[in-house]
């Protein structure tokens, strides 16, 4: 199985991967280490109780001082998805449409490899780029149980996996948009807009009645919007996130087959 295209792209993204991983390690460590100082701070809960809509905008519902509330409010509902989405959408928009705009895509599509094999390697690189950030977060949160963050192992693993799938899905959407349009700007713009809308729908669904039914259309809901840190990632959520990924992969492969390469 060819791997050179994946290795090439990972080499090109090395700095971003290392930088984002170090950044998330520092951030998550601080959040985890600060929990003991805030777990008895009841005034924090007044914030969410007093204006649940504003709190919901930041992806926060319920108590902020429980272990899951603390991690949701500071990591899982916003910061971790944001970092993973920046990584995956940024790479996915660059690896097909961006490289075509730069002219370097011709170097790889003239190799003796099927376009689908090339796209497969790019998707593998997409997944591998998101993994270090997700794994570092998972490890630090599990270590955080020494800081009174008493959460079950599997719910944390499931929630982290859900965010990883979320990032991959939006990365695949950027890949598809880039392969359809050949434009890095369109890939970034369309995917960022869909991700932002998806985030808002999932965040506001608990407090806004008319949005509530729409939550099932939001990938954030299936990933982090359904109390996954307490309940774990349900099979249904995992199936939705995986199914969307498979559909986007098929669509991206068809679009990449037909892409005019410069």
């Amino acid at each position, binding site marked *: 199985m*060819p791997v*050179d*295209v994946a*290795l*090439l792209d990972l*080499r*090109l993204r090395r700095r971003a991967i290392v930088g984002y991983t170090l950044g998330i390690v520092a951030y998550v460590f601080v959040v985890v280490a600060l929990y003991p100082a805030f777990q008895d701070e009841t005034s924090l809960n007044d914030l969410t109780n007093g204006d649940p809509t504003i709190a919901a905008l930041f992806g926060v519902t319920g108590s902020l001082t429980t272990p899951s509330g603390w991690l949701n409010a500071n990591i899982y509902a916003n910061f971790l998805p944001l970092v993973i989405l920046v990584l995956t959408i940024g790479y996915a928009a660059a690896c097909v449409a961006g490289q075509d705009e*730069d*002219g*370097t895509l*011709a*170097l*790889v*599509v*003239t*190799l*003796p*490899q*099927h*376009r689908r094999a090339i796209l497969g390697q790019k998707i593998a690189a997409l997944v591998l780029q998101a993994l270090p950030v997700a794994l570092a977060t998972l490890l630090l949160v599990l270590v955080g149980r020494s800081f009174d963050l008493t959460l079950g192992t599997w719910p944390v693993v499931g929630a982290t996996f859900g965010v990883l799938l979320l990032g991959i899905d939006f990365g695949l959407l950027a890949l598809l948009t880039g392969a359809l349009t050949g434009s890095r700007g369109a890939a970034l713009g369309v995917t960022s807009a869909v991700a932002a809308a998806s985030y808002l729908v999932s965040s506001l669904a608990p407090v806004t009645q008319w949005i509530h039914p729409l939550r099932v259309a939001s990938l954030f809901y299936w990933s982090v919007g359904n109390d996954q840190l307490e309940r774990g990632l349900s099979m249904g959520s995992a199936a939705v996130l995986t199914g969307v990924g498979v559909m986007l992969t098929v669509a991206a492969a068809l679009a990449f087959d*037909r892409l*005019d*390469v*410069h």
Partner: protein
Amino acid sequence: MTPVVEVAGLTRHFGAHRGVVDLSFAIGSGEVFGFLGPNGAGKSTTIRLLLGLIRPTSGTARVFGLDPVQDAVAVHRRTGYLAGDLALYPRLTGRQHLERLGHARGVAVRHYRDELVERFGVELDRPVRVLSKGNRQKIGLVLAFMHRPDLLVLDEPTTGLDPLLQEEFGRLVRETVAEGRTVLLSSHELDEVQRLVDRLTILREGHVVVTDTVAGLRRAAPRTVSFRFTDDIDPGPFAALDGARLVAAADGQVTLALSGPVAPALRLAGELGAVDVTARPADLDELFLAYYRAEARPEVGHAR
């Protein structure tokens, strides 16, 4: 024998924009074939069609008898490509390009690659972003040639190369075809084409204007002939000759561009008492420029 490249009625539109229209030509094995034309003539579009980078709107292209889109892997395995606006990865060095892309091509034997690196003096250890256009072009040439492909597709290959390296490139092309391999190169440089190619297609505004050998084109090209007389004469009879165009007439000198036989002009000059005659060889530049000009399109038949 199956031609290495065979194109019939090949057309590609880009929305409302013209790409290339109804191209037909064939390239035989061991041939150096040129695409010549001004910028925007459709040379790069044709090359992209031959490599399956884009799909045709209509018509067919065959490379090694295969469809470049459906059989892209087999075509690419036997082809080396240098893009006209070559882009490399700015942060990677030349060595990293050659290693990674060579490995992807399954280049196991590196001595030919290393020989090319030495011949062209390729800078291998600095990031591409700090290299000059010429040094980047050298890396592109090694990438195209290093796996000894049966077909080289080279779009403006000598861009940025100094004259010595252009000579070296010419030697490499001749060595390549001497081994029975085929070279397709596009250029807007008349000198380069005249020096290197056996046969060429001239493209203008997406259409094939003519396909012929350089010798064939030279035969059709106008020769410049000047006659000197002791006094001013009426140049009208010269202008009326078949295949003659009056270039200048002054101070007892008449200059003609002759694309037909020279005998009638010599006879007429003799009758008028010419005292001297000078003739320049066939001028391909003038022929090419005439083809390029939209308003002046010579009547030259298509070969193949």
